[in-house]
Each structure stands twice: as structure tokens, then as C-alpha cells.
């Protein structure tokens, strides 16, 4: 039965090439835009090197202090706070404290390189899985001794040293000389928690360590033993913060800071809903936007489908006269339409692969490495199906209601 439907669908597609082209064009471009968006989303929030075990990773990068007089300030937390209160949490497997990235200059052969530098501890390299091209991370000894060593990314290596080995050579950044101990693959700028061009030991900024106060320039990366531990960590963190709030020098001050996944952190800043990250709302907004975007091409496809199906009214008339029920006919047209959208989906994949390559090469997003993977593919497939159903149901329903007699006569008003 299904095979028959598909056969008919294929013949119909070949019969009216112009209409087929219009439909496929619409479908494939719509899906392409959606897939590029999905890929961007996945790239920013999904598991990517170096943040691979996303379900076990939590990030602390905001601290908001509200004073009783209505004055409030927010920004990254301080080293003092993270070191004393977050590193000492019991539930996590490991906690890393690292600075946000700062832009600094480096001069070589009368050229200037604007580099982003990040100060990290030893745990940073254990928690995150960087892909080392040569050398390795700096160790506990180098961190403890505040050695001037650096891990650099591939792009910096090529810009500074030219192609070839860099480990063991010296790089001068912001008038300070560092010995290169490792080279890693470029990390895209969208992953703010791990991105940098140059990573150096955090102890080189020890002047920040004893500054009291809650706000500073540091992030914490927390790794849980297992995904089930994540809620426990959040609870422990909240309890710890509550205790600090009670002990706060200024009575009535409020502290808010949360260990979040990347998506939760985004939702929290974007929606600004305080204690609840508002993931559900974010998903609703995204789904709404996707629906709105699909609406116009879907209406277009519906009107084309109606004209196409009208042409086949005599076929429907014959089938009805021989006893086919409305639901069988609806079923057939939906199968045909889904077949068409899946075909468009495949074209869409090809197109989006090309567009993603274009974005990567254009350098709009620094070190972007957008690509199609299984997750994006599944989403694309799902979107194609939804699109096929949306645009197929109404024409099929309209057709199925044709009276056999009228249909046999060749069309309706």
C-alpha cells in the first residue's frame, strides 16, 4: 500500500515539473534556514569540544548583589568567594576556577595580534577535554609556582610562530614572556566558559586572590560525579549562598548566583527571571518563532498543494466511487506530502551544509566550526515531518470532502 502511494507520488512529481520545483524550493530553503539555526543553537549550547560531558557540567559566571537601599550590581563573582565557598562544596567531583578572558596585545614583526588571555588552574584541564595538537596542559607544579607557561590555540600558533612546532618556544603577550607548553585546537568564541587564545596559570594574578567582596572577574566550572548529582549540587550551592546571605555585613542584602548549564545561564540572563532559569519559557519562545517562520512557506505550500490536488479530482472521484473512505484519501495525500517534504529536507541538508561552510569561512563568528551532526540531523528530520504535516493536512482534508459525482465531472467550485 505505502509503496503504491510513494510510486504515485513520484509520478505526480515528475508530471508537473514546475510545481515540483516551486514546492521543493520552498521546503528546502525553509528547512535550510531552520537547520542553520539549529546548528548555531547546538554549537552554542550543545556538547562540543572541550565541553563534552554537558550533562555533568555546571558553570557559575554571574553574581548579583542587591542591597537593601535598592542599589544592585551584578557581574562575574570574585576569586575570594569562589575559592572559599565553591571549591569547598562536597558534592561535585571537581571544581575549577578560571578568570574571564581579557583582550591583550602581542607584537610580532611589526604586526599586532589582539589575543584573548584566560587565567586558569590545573583542574580546568581535567574537567574540560581540550584537543591537544602538541604538548599538554600545565601541571599542578606550574600553577603552584606561578610559572610563566602558556597553552595557546592553533590560530595563535600559526600567526605567531608560523606553521610548525611551537612547544618550548617563547611567546610575548602584553609585555610578558611565556613558555609554550601546549597547543590546542581553536575553541569558538561562543563557548565563553572555555574560549581564549592563550591560557596561563591563574596564580599569575594572585593580586586578586585576597580581594574581599563577592564580585570580581572569575568563573567557576563544576563537574559532577554523575548527571543525577546535578540537582544535589544546585541544592548545596543554594544552601551555601543562603548561609552567606545571613552572615552578610549589610543586613537585608540579597545574593543571587547559580550553578547553571550553558542554556540555563543564557535563559536566566535573557529572560531575567531571577531564581527560576525559565527554560520552559525559552523553549516556548523558540518554538513560537519557528512556527511563525514556517507559517508563510506553509501557507504557500498549502495553496500550491490545493491546485495540484485539484488536477487529480477525477482520480479521487474514481477512488471514491470504488469505495475509498475519506480517511484513506487523507492518509494517501499526507503520505505523499510527507514524502515531498522529506525530499525537500534532503535538499535542505545539502544547502545548509554549504551555508554553514560559508559562515565558517567568513569569520563572522570567531573560530566557528559549525557543522551538521546527528543531533542537528534528527532535529531537521523532525522539522521536515512537522512541516509536511502542517502543509499537507488542510489540502488533503479539503480534497477528501469532494463528492464523488462532482469529482468525476472534473473539479469543484
Amino acid at each position, binding site marked *: 500500500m505505502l509503496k503504491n502511494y510513494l510510486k504515485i507520488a513520484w509520478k505526480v512529481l515528475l508530471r508537473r515539473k*514546475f*510545481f515540483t520545483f*516551486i514546492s521543493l*524550493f*520552498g521546503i528546502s*530553503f*525553509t528547512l535550510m*534556514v531552520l537547520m542553520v539555526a539549529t546548528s548555531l543553537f547546538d554549537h552554542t549550547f550543545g556538547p562540543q569540544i572541550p565541553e563534552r560531558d554537558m550533562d555533568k557540567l555546571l558553570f557559575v559566571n554571574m553574581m548579583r548583589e542587591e542591597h537593601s537601599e535598592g542599589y544592585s550590581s551584578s557581574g562575574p563573582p570574585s576569586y575570594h568567594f569562589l575559592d572559599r565557598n565553591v571549591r569547598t562544596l562536597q558534592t561535585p567531583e571537581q571544581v575549577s576556577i578560571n578568570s574571564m578572558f*581579557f*583582550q*591583550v*596585545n602581542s*607584537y610580532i614583526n*611589526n*604586526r*599586532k595580534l*589582539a589575543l584573548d588571555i584566560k587565567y586558569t588552574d590545573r583542574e580546568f584541564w581535567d574537567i574540560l577535554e581540550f584537543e591537544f595538537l602538541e604538548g599538554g596542559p600545565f601541571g599542578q607544579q606550574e600553577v603552584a609556582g606561578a610559572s610563566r607557561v602558556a597553552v595557546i590555540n592553533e590560530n595563535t600558533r600559526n600567526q605567531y610562530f608560523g606553521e610548525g612546532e611551537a612547544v618550548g618556544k617563547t611567546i610575548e603577550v*602584553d*609585555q610578558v614572556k611565556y613558555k609554550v607548553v601546549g597547543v590546542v585546537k581553536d575553541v569558538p568564541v561562543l563557548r565563553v566558559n572555555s574560549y581564549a587564545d592563550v591560557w596561563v596559570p591563574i596564580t599569575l594574578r594572585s*593580586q586578586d586572590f585576597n*580581594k574581599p567582596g563577592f564580585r570580581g572577574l572569575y568563573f567557576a566550572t563544576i563537574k559532577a560525579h554523575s548527571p543525577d548529582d546535578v540537582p544535589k549540587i544546585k541544592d548545596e550551592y543554594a544552601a551555601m549562598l543562603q548561609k552567606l546571605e545571613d552572615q552578610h555585613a549589610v543586613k537585608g542584602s540579597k545574593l543571587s548566583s547559580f550553578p547553571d548549564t550553558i542554556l540555563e545561564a543564557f535563559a536566566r540572563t535573557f529572560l531575567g527571571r531571577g531564581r527560576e532559569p525559565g527554560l520552559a519559557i525559552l523553549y516556548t519562545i523558540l518554538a513560537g518563532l519557528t512556527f511563525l*517562520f514556517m*507559517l*508563510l*512557506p506553509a*501557507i*504557500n*505550500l*498549502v*495553496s*500550491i498543494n*490545493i*491546485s495540484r490536488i*485539484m*488536477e487529480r479530482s477525477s482520480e479521487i472521484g474514481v477512488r471514491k466511487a470504488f469505495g475509498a473512505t475519506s480517511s484513506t484519501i487523507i492518509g494517501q495525500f499526507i503520505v505523499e506530502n510527507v514524502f515531498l517534504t522529506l525530499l525537500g529536507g534532503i535538499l535542505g541538508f545539502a544547502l545548509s551544509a554549504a551555508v554553514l561552510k560559508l559562515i565558517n569561512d567568513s569569520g*563572522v563568528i570567531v573560530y566557528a566550526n559549525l557543522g551538521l551532526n546527528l543531533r542537528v540531523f534528527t532535529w531537521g528530520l523532525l522539522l521536515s515531518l512537522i512541516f509536511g504535516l502542517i502543509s499537507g493536512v488542510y489540502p488533503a482534508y479539503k480534497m477528501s470532502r469532494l463528492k464523488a459525482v462532482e469529482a468525476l465531472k472534473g*473539479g469543484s467550485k
Partner: protein
Amino acid sequence: MIRHLFKLIWNRKRSNFLLITEIFFCFLVLFAVLSLIVYNVRNYNKPLGFEHENVWLLSMRPDTDSTALNRQTLEQIMQRAKGFQEIESMALTNSNAPFAFSQMNNQLSYGEKMIMANEYLVQDDFDKVMRMQVSHGRWFGQQDNASHHYPIVINRAMQQQLFEGEDPLGKLLHRNDSSNYQVVGVVEHYRPSSEYTAEEPGFFNRIQLPRDEKDFYGELLIKVKPGMGVEFEEKMVKELSGIGKGWTMEVTTLEKMRQNKAKVAKVPMIALTIICVFLILNVALGLFGVLWYNISRRNSEIGLRRAVGAASSQVYRQFIGEVLVLATFGLVLGVAFAIQFPLLQVFEVESTVYLIALGIAIGLIYLLAIGCAFYPSRQAAAIHPAMALHEE
């Protein structure tokens, strides 16, 4: 004729419903994207009020918390920088330097009026560094040292909002309980945040280092002689780093900062335009296909009209006319929606922007409709009556 066309479309409103909705949504999308583009283009064509060529921004981040110590070092650094032959002039500023990503607002009131204005803290030489033109009054300088008011220079936008017709020179504005601002000059334009943002009210407040003992300013605008490149930059940073040991120093040109800002405005605009063009192309093709199909179904009707004496040009005009009427239905709906934006003052954008976008969108939709109907209508006009009637 036109009434007749309206009747024809109205009678088939059910089958034309989808086409009308399509045109309606298409119009809304076009209107939204065009509003954004018109807004940005109009801003882009207005003067910035300053020149940023050969101006560099040196950002300094000290490594200690002691303001007294940092101030000492800062003054040494500035002394040294003044010694460079390659530097023409320089001025300290707050973090909201031209094309920077930060902003600083302050509430000001005059009489009954109260506005939020951007506050730019700058040193006396700022007007020379950025080549500002004061159109009325003067820039602040040494002669203001004796004044117990804080001298400020305001932009035209602020003058219009706060003082309306009055002459602002010499007017006092409340600063805090013990001091006032005094307006000493007016500049025509100042749009530092980006080429694509609208003019906002703003004023320049004077940085007077000896007076503001507790404050530290880490951004230095430097105007260098033309042709200075990385070579001088490296030399300068090396020497200044020698004075500010442990400080982080970062130099960037305002041109580079302008490009970054422009990218932030341009990338979403380009992405939206591409998506919009695709949507419209999609709709155009769909419209074309459906019109073609509809017209080919009305073969016999056309044949009959031709047989009773209608010229082919009349048939042609009828079909083009029908499509235009169809577009009009969609547009009436769309305009009813879109006109709410200027009426309700959504997003606080000038009404002109919306009206221009509305005009262009209507024009484009009609063009699109005619473009799509052109070929099918020609086909219809070419139908031979004998053939059409014979088929029936």
C-alpha cells in the same frame, strides 16, 4: 471595471483566501525588515559629529586597588605620552569612549522637564582629539577652573528636549545638593555609540584631575600624526608599560572599534534581509504557480469573452487587474496592522521611518503581484476563442 473586478474576487473569496493571507504575511515581513533597514540607513546618513581617523584608544587596567598610587602612575604615563613627537593631542575619557560598548546615563532636570541623557566624562583636549565643532558657545578649558559650577557642553538633541526654544548658554542644571552644572557650549551632533544608532541627548562633563582626587580614568584617547602604525604602537606600549609595571595596556584604533560596532548592527540586518528575500521569492513562485493554474482552468471563460468580441488586451488587463485587486485585499489588512506602529509610537522610533517602510513595502508587493501575473496573463490573452470553446 474596477467594481466588477472586486466583485469577481469577492465571489471567489474562499478559494482566494489563501492567496490573500499569503500576501498579508508577506507584507508584514517586508514591513518589519524594511523598517529596520530604513531606520539604520537614515541614521547612517546623518553626521557623527566627530572624526575618528588616526585616533587610538589606550585602555589601562591597574593591578592594585590603591587609587592614590594608580593616580600617580597615570600622571607619569600621561607626562611620558605627551613627550612623544608622534602624538598630536590626547584626552582621558570614561569607559564610554566613541564606538565603545559601554554607556553611562544621568538624569537631568530643568524647570519641569526631566530627561535621561548620556554623560561623557572627558578632558579639556577632547574637542581637539575628536575634532568636534562647537556651534554655539565654547568648549570648556582652563578658564573654568575658577568657576564653582561644573561646565558642560551639550548636544543639539539635548538642547531641543530640555530647553526647547530657550538659549541654553549659561543655564544652571542641578547636579547635587552642593553643586550645579553650567552649560557653556552646544555641539550640533554627537553620536558616539555607532553609525547606526539615532542621536540621543548627551552632554560632556569635564574631567579635572586635580579636583577629582578619588577618581581613576583608565581610557586615554590619543590622536596620532597621520601614517603612524604598529611600529609606533609597540614602542609606545613598551615605554608606557615600563612606567605602569604590572598594568595591562591595550591599544586599539577607533576605526577598528567602529568596524566592530558596525558588524553588530550589520550582521543581523544582512541575515534578516536574506531570510526576507527568500520568503518573498518563495511567495512569488507560489503566487505565480497558483495564478497560472487558476488562469488555465478558466480557459473556457476567456474563450467566451473573446468570442463575444473582447480584444486580447482587454483580457490581459482583466487578469492583471484581478491580481492587483487580490493584492489590495491583502494589503488593506496588512496596512491596518502596520499603521499601528507609528500611531502607537512602538519602540520610540520616528513615524517617518515606519511611513517610508510602509510605502516601500506596498510598492514592492504591487510590483511582486504584477511580476507574477505578467506571464500567466499573457498566456490567457493569447488563448484562441475557437480552441477554448472547442475544448469545452
